[in-house]
């Protein structure tokens, strides 16, 4: 029996200049006990489908066509009170950000209790027993202690377990999981996915799994629906969609995602980005046509019909047979690592923080312990590790933002960790940092030209005209139009802002860039553009980079060598290819096994690592790093 059926569903938003389709011609059926993956980049409308199921749409948005049937009832047309009765009972949700999904001023116990009371478990004692059982089911130990804790005292993985426990408390018929693992570390992501699968099997729940990660979707879903600008691009059994994508967008998504195995290939970078709400109306014909590598004039005549391409697989493309011919450009020979002279030498770097506020409660926490490595000219080194592994602290020390407790580092043959004025000047001239979040790293009140040339302005001795010329040259180099120099950061997209962020770091022509998770918040197609840009910049101007990331596939693509950090220590280091082919440390093996494999038919066997079920003492550490 089908639990959730969408028939020609359409959602529109009322904008000042008329109504715009947010979701159009959505068709799928989700059988009982199966998993449907909704895949696409941000703005594709996948979260909007989740909100449509709950009918909690933003103001001005409404369902304008078709129907959405849950268990034989029409979710759109039923009275709001009836629908509210279903929510939390028969339809449950798991959010993207587990930490902000729980109310910060109420204990975990209070929040579970409230939910159970609503489910009709009358007596407080029974509710407590029930809550303890639920926490046990999601493998959270010390349940009784946990009930008295507040969300900020728990790690993200633990909060997500609590939310999963609450979602499954009523043994729901349908679960909507909206990017439930995106905010979590890879090993925890693997365990959370396993947990959802385990609970789903127990209760026979049907799941709508929303994700941007095609590889993950191929692993966990029975069927996949790929969305582009609110319209289905492709729909079909997960394995066949992944193995033989029929829509060019699916294929491009796949090619823009770095592989975890096999020979290193270049990334396919789709140009531009997905059209926003206001741009959709201006596109004639296929919405993907403006970015499609196989576009022909017929594509822009009308919206493409849904074509059966294989058993149960449909694609909204008039020429699905050409999709397989889309290929990523070859890696050029000059992308191969070229060893230069040593630029940065780090010896025994250690950082200890004092934590605890009171007079007698001081305790030391070692965030980074005895880290040593050498960065050569034109070399990209990746630092991987989970949150709390100390990788960002290493970056902050090497930029001079934090003084090492012990150890030293040399840049271009000069010792710079003593903190003197001349050392800091030397450091600034050679090392620049690119921050993670361009949104908060760029001052919203300054124009791009002034942001990009801040370092020149601070050094003095340049005129405004010189700086503007330099800014325009830099913008051209990082692939933005020179007239962007006169705009403000809010007028740019996320990917463009991150380019500006990189341009700012490149302004003083540093030898070393330190990049802390610079592509983690971006869509894969934008990520591919940026990774290719970094490669291209290295070819053109030559620089070294320390690339900090939790995403192993990105490090594999970009970096010549890598360091694996775990709890402040480097547990393994060496050439990237060697580590991926034959990891020697058990933690590295756990980390690699946690990433869904490229081939969906391969068995994904993440190993258990109890980092998300930590003891209270460790929670404190995690919160302070």
């Amino acid at each position, binding site marked *: 029996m089908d639990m959730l059926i969408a028939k020609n569903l359409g959602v529109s938003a009322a904008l000042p200049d008329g109504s715009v389709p947010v979701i159009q011609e959505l068709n799928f059926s989700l059988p009982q006990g199966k998993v449907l993956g909704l895949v696409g980049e941000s703005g594709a409308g996948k979260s909007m489908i989740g909100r449509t199921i709950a009918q909690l749409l933003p103001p001005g948005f409404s369902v304008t066509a078709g129907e959405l049937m849950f268990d034989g009832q029409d979710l759109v047309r039923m009275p709001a009170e009836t629908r509210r009765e279903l929510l939390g009972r028969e339809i449950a*949700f798991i959010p993207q950000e587990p930490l902000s999904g729980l109310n910060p001023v109420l204990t975990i116990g209070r929040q579970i209790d409230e939910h159970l009371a609503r489910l009709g478990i009358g007596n407080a004692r029974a509710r407590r027993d029930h809550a303890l059982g639920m926490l046990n089911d999601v493998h959270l130990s010390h349940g009784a202690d946990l009930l008295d804790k507040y969300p900020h005292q728990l790690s993200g993985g633990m909060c997500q377990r609590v939310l999963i426990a609450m979602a499954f408390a009523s043994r729901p018929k349908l679960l909507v999981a909206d990017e439930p693992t995106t905010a979590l570390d890879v090993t925890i992501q693997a365990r959370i996915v396993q947990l959802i699968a385990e609970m789903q099997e127990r209760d026979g729940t049907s799941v709508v799994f929303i994700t941007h990660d095609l590889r993950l979707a191929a692993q966990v879903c029975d069927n996949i629906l790929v969305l582009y600008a609110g319209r289905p691009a492709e729909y079909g059994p997960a394995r066949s969609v992944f193995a033989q994508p029929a829509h060019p967008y699916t294929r491009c998504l796949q090619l823009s995602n770095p592989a975890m195995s096999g020979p290193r290939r270049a990334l396919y970078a789709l140009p531009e980005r997905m059209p926003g709400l206001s741009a959709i109306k201006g596109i004639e014909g296929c919405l993907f046509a403006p970015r499609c590598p196989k576009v022909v004039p017929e594509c822009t005549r009308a919206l493409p019909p849904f074509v059966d391409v294989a058993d149960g697989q449909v694609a909204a493309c008039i020429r699905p047979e050409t999709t397989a011919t889309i290929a990523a450009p070859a890696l050029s020979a000059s992308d191969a690592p070229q060893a230069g002279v040593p630029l940065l030498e780090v010896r025994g770097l250690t950082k200890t923080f004092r934590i605890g506020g009171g007079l007698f409660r001081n305790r030391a926490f070692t965030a980074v312990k005895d880290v040593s490595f050498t960065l050569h000219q034109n070399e990209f080194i990746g630092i991987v590790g989970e949150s709390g592994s100390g990788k960002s602290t290493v970056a902050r020390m090497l930029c001079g933002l934090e003084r090492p407790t012990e150890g030293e580092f040399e840049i271009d043959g000069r010792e710079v960790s003593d903190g003197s004025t001349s050392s800091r000047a030397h450091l600034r001239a050679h090392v620049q940092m690119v921050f993670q979040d361009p949104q908060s790293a760029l001052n919203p009140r300054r124009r791009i030209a002034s942001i990009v040339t801040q370092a020149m302005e601070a050094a003095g001795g340049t005129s405004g005209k010189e700086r503007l010329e330099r800014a325009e040259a830099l913008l051209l180099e990082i692939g933005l139009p020179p007239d962007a120099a006169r705009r403000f950061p809010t007028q740019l997209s996320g990917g463009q802002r991150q380019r500006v962020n990189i341009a700012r770091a490149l302004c003083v022509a540093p030898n070393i860039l330190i990049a802390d998770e610079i592509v983690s918040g971006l869509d894969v197609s934008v990520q591919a553009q940026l990774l290719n840009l970094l490669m291209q910049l290295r070819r053109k101007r030559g620089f070294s980079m320390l690339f900090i990331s939790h995403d192993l596939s990105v490090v594999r693509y970009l970096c010549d060598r890598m360091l694996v950090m775990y709890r402040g220590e480097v547990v393994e280091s060496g050439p990237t290819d060697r580590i991926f082919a034959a990891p020697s440390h058990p933690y590295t093996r756990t980390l690699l096994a946690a990433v869904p494999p490229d081939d969906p038919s391969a068995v994904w066997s993440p190993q258990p690592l109890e980092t998300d079920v930590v003891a209270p003492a460790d929670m404190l550490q995690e919160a302070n790093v």
Partner: protein
Amino acid sequence: MIATVFPLVGRRLLSSVAILLIVSMLLFVVLHVLPVDPAAMSLPPTATLADIEAMRREMGLDQPLPNQYMIWLAKVIQGDFGASIHFRRGVLGLVADTLPATVELAVLAMMIASALGIVGGLVLFHVRGSRKEPVVDFGSIMLLSIPEFLWSLFFILIFGVALHWLPFTGRLDPDLRVPAGTGFLLFDALMAGRLDIFFSAARHMILPSFALGIAFSPTIMRVLRSSLIDVYQEDYIHLARLRGLSERRILLGHALKNAILPTLSLMGVQFGFLFGGTLLVEVIYSYPGLGNLMVDAVRNADLPIIQAVGLAYCAVVLIINTVVDSLYMVLNPKLRLR
């Protein structure tokens, strides 16, 4: 809970002592720069220059200012704030008689301000985006722009003079006597079992406390409204809806508990202003509190009283801020010691 706020209260106590010392020094210096001679004032008009000189010596006024301050401070530490030149009474007794009246008025006014502020904030939040919003918003801005002394005058004219509903001078009806006790009239009347005194005192407090409370409520309303709007953007509110909780339950059980935190820290600051605001209101309602004592003292250049009352205002504000911050800590789990 006591263990939670104990370190905070301890720290605040230490810093309060330092703040009071600095304020007392400032008061001391400023008052001695004034062209007022306490020695001459404390003698009858017939006194000779020699008499005044002798009095100056006796009062220690011939000493350098730092010495004078040390002498004053030494006495204050022993509980001797000196005697009022005008009232011919110990300053400590005068302050002890009037301080409770003012604190009682201020606390009542703060309760009214908080109640109006929270209800008003919820109303403002409720009407957001509706057609009623401009009207309610206009009302709240109008409230914001009327100061407490204007409210005092309106209330006297409307409820006192025109309608004769409520008394508007003093603390009690003239035929009643203040019962002995703490000086907090409502409390003392109840302890003495005198309901007639209790109701008379309460009736006398309605107009001044409402005048103060209404004047200080709009800021609370507006802050509560904007923090509620912020809280409603949070994921846990959205998720509470997805769990099928009712809107009422989401507002009262989830949103308000978070939105009250910034409102509470504002209330702490507001109370300081409100306590200062009692001065004008007391004068308008002839309410025998610290404010009227201060006004009398200033009029008579009664330096010992000005000094003591100034310190009393300062101490009350410090205490209230400590209480509010402790409350904030209790309500916000993130600030509690782990």
